[in-house]
């Protein structure tokens, strides 16, 4: 179900059905990533094989430097693998140009970061509307969808507030609304509760669970927090660039 449909779905009392397809959304085949520190190569991911199905909510854990953020960046199309094949949402990311990946990200990926990174001069609803500026939707439709996304995260009362007028938890909820406003197939969350207290962290995790269970969104979450990882349906662990 899309967020655009969320408003009508919420209006009816019957809970919407969760997406139950088991098609693989993410397929990593011997994916490696090597960075260069000066002239010295540093292999961050080593021939990693991974398949994640549509509708999954998976947590990636591991010590610092284990490669979990690098893997998340590759899956989200922010970076390209050095070798191997990476298919996400029917696209071979390794063969796409930067421009093609930017277009693909705008259509398929929703991002939630540890730091909220909202534009301070834009209101909550304008921040949520940002990704829709890249579409050809009319202005009124863009605004309507942004308002719907804010309603999904429970912030319809604060939509005209600037980020500085919101709490940390509320800001993170705005970023989640921004992540779902384009109705992406995959949400990647990099330490989404890292800057929040327990109470706000639980609220964000509840929201991610809701997006997964009620709206059928596939979610990959990198976290150091075991309590957060527990909320995922599956936890994968990385160490030294390999899944263990």
């Amino acid at each position, binding site marked *: 179900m899309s967020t655009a449909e969320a408003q009508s779905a919420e209006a009816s009392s019957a809970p919407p059905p969760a997406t139950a397809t088991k098609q693989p959304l993410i397929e990593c085949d011997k994916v490696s990533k090597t960075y260069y520190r000066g002239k010295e190569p540093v292999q961050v991911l080593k021939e990693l094989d991974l398949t994640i199905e549509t509708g999954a909510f998976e947590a990636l854990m591991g010590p610092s430097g284990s490669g979990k953020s690098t893997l998340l960046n590759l899956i989200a199309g922010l970076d390209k693998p050095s070798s191997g094949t990476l298919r996400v949402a029917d696209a071979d990311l390794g063969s796409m140009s930067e421009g093609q990946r930017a277009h693909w990200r705008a259509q398929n990926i929703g991002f939630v970061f540890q730091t909220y*990174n909202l534009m301070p001069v834009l209101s909550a609803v304008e921040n949520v509307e940002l990704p829709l500026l890249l579409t050809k939707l009319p202005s009124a439709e863009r605004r309507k969808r942004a308002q719907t996304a804010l309603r999904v995260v429970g912030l319809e009362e604060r939509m005209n507030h600037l980020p500085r007028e919101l709490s940390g938890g509320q800001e993170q909820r705005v970023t989640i609304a921004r992540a779902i406003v384009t109705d992406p197939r995959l949400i990647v969350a990099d330490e989404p509760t890292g800057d929040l207290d327990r109470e706000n962290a639980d609220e964000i995790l509840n929201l991610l669970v809701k997006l997964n269970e009620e709206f059928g969104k596939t979610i990959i979450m990198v976290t150091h927090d075991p309590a957060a990882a527990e909320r995922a349906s599956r936890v994968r662990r990385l160490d030294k660039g390999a899944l263990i």
Partner: protein
Amino acid sequence: MRLSAIGVRNVLRNRFRTVLTALGVAVAILAFVMLRTILSAWTAAVDHAAKDRVGTRHKVSMILPLPGRYVAEVEQIPGVEKAAPASWFGAKDPKHEQEFFATIAVEADSFLSVYDEVKVAPDAREAWMQNRRGALVGDVLAKKLGWKVGDRVTLQGTIYPGDWEFEISGIYTATRRSIDRSTFWFHYDYLNEWLKDRTPAQADQVGWIVSRIDDPSQAAAISKRIDQHFDSRDVQTLSMSERALNTSFLGMISAILSALDIVSVVILLIMTLILGNTIAMGVRERTNEYGVLRAIGFLPKHLALFVLGESIAIGAIGGLLGVLAAYPLIEQGLGRFLEENMGGFFPYVRIPPTTIGVAFGLALLLGALAAGFPAYRASKLDIVDSLRKVG
């Protein structure tokens, strides 16, 4: 909300910095307009020179005199309707030692005929004709020194020493900008008689001759004819249109004009660097934010446009402030001061509309230029590195 609005909204992000930068731009634009206006006022005499007048001077130098008999001969040259002699006098009012104004000896009748833009009341004109010590002064000069018709004025000669007594016969205005309204005109005969008494060798000579011609398009040909006429004489002449004559006057101060020209450009360059620095700071501070925008699908060109939009917006605000401040400060303040105190050099100080247009256009253009490098850097940000900076 539109994409273009984001760059403009960023202007409000750090208001204090934006205000300071916009004020910096405004001051630079104000200084630019001021210098260009001064340059324009200085060259106004050239721009507004009469097209139907030809000036004749000594071929060797402007400061060397011509024989007085040349006036009548020039008047006989085909194409010349009337010739008027003039001689630089050089004097100051002991009551106003610091005030500079031009004092020029002329033949009243030929002067008023050749300079028909000089507007003087008929009775004042008649009074000047009848009074050997009479003087005709510009309204700007009269106002500045508090002179009125009938006043007796004693000037101290700087080239021809001694006290020179005059009576203000009339106060003139001008129907065109081709003549300075701060000049003190008096009778050539008064000077010439004094010279005959004291230094006869210098008598019966004139500084230059200004001629009214019948066909402005023939100015060059008539000038050539005049010079050819005196070609075989001991004292040869150099004739040119009034515009060229004024330009040759300006040639003596061309270094100053060039310096002002350069300074006006340097000021704008400094403004560009200040604006560029502000924009670069903003881009550096927003690295992480730009990383997020790139992550959610914005392209490098979008980031470049945001940076460009912000810089042009600050340039526009500063440019507008500078231009708005220019009118009261320059036209009412500096301009009036220059007209009243240095009318000989700046007879008419007004901001040319083209200067306003150019100044505002340059504020926008340099705003875009200042954003060039920061916009390029923003567009080249590596997404992963940008996100790592804070996260």
